[in-house]
């Protein structure tokens, strides 16, 4: 845990530098994880042993620039970093292994085809991928064409969760925060975010006023934010 704490403070330092001196948010990305024990053990397929041979200091930004130069090994490394998270998000929405893999593969393929969609000045790649995968998965269950270009998904630079995803501490915090939400708040967020229901549909399903549903979703999200910033 002390390692995590150290990394987190390094990340904070990087964030301060980027905001105060450079004004380039993506510099926050320089504090990337240098190891990946949780993911390596979690991945069960035949490529598991590859993790230990990855360059330890590579960060997302450098990887993306190599992807821009059509470096397939860099893309493979990004896949190793985030495919498990992306697949899990897709799985939560579509609830079908084959469809979830399709969504995950398509999003990573879009990164390969158009790395610039993210490179400019978005937040962390991991957080961005989580949102893009969720949105694409919602498109799938709603049987509609992609409702937005991936370029349109913009995250705040402060949401650099990449490092924390690897060690799961922050995710545990967010999970606990979600668990601690009043049940009706949690349900509203989950219906909107993971089931792709509009607030009007939720209001109808729950027999409650639109305004109540709106307020619940916002309040729940603010609780998650608080847990992250705590």
């Amino acid at each position, binding site marked *: 845990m002390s390692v995590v704490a150290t990394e987190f403070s390094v990340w904070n330092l990087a964030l301060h530098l980027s905001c105060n001196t450079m004004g380039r948010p993506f510099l926050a990305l320089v504090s990337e994880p240098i190891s990946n024990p949780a993911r390596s053990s979690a991945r069960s397929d035949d490529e598991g042993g590859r993790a230990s041979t990855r360059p330890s200091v590579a960060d997302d930004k450098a990887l993306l620039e190599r992807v821009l130069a059509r470096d397939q090994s860099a893309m*493979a490394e990004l*896949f190793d970093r985030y*495919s498990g998270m992306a697949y899990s998000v897709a799985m939560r929405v579509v609830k079908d292994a084959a469809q979830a893999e399709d969504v995950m593969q398509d999003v990573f393929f879009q990164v390969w085809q158009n790395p610039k969609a993210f490179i400019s000045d978005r937040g962390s790649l991991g*957080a961005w991928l989580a949102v893009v995968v969720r949105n694409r998965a919602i498109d799938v269950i709603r049987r509609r064409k992609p409702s937005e270009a991936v370029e349109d998904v913009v995250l705040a630079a402060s949401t650099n969760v990449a490092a924390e995803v690897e060690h799961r501490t922050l995710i545990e915090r967010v999970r606990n925060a979600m668990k601690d939400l009043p049940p009706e708040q949690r349900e509203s967020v989950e219906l*909107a975010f993971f089931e792709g229901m509009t*607030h009007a549909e939720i209001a109808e399903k729950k027999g409650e006023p639109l305004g109540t549903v709106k307020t619940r979703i*916002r309040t729940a999200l603010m609780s998650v934010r608080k847990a992250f910033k705590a």
Partner: protein
Amino acid sequence: MTDGRHISQEDLVLYAMQALSPEESAPVRAHLAECPACRAELAELNGDLALVAMSVEQHPVPAGARQRFLNRIAAEAAPAQLASKTIVSPVVPIDAPRPARRVAAWIPWAAVAAMILVCVALEWRVNSLNTELLLQSQQIAQQTVASARAREVLDVLTAPAAQRVVLTAAKTPPAPTARAIYLPSRGALILQASNLALLPEGKTYELWVIPASGAPIPAGLFRPDASGSASVILPELPKGVPAKAFGVTIESAAGSATPTAPIVLSGAAPAAGE
């Protein structure tokens, strides 16, 4: 939807989740395009949503997913390299797998080009047909005028009401006369007769073309009206027979194949008939 100048946080959350109806999200999108503050808040909210997304139960990636992905990007990269090589040297090895996407991309363009060619050809054809139509219309108009004129000439020549007068030297008593106009090359003959003696029942005048050689050719039957006038207009005659003379005989009503004496009217044709 907007609280004063900005989008409320509640609506921004719903917008970020795509939980607004299209009608509701349009004004939000419009406002975001012009409001850096709301864009910044939306980016924060997307970060919050990323946390929610990443809090899901973790599943291991399906076996083989990594290899499938690597194959996919390798397959995508290969045509790109092939394409760049193609630019350097247009000679593509026969066994080189041509990228399906590039081939497919040509099809619509080729179709467009073909359509353009067809359109141009059709346009050209339409123009030429129009020109032809115009030309024919002009010809028809000219022929109509000519035809009307010919009809008028014919009407004047043949109208029963037309007054036919043969002018002769003074004090010459009126005598039966006929004027034949003959165009041998077309076998066309017009005869105008006047002051003819009336015929008894069962008799008719018959006109004869007397060729330079050979037997006289029957050229139509006619009976004079009350004033002694008669016409023969374009009887059936062989073409290209120059006439030496014309004659009129009196025959029985059905006509005859050979003239019966006497010849009541005759006239020699001038040497140069045409």
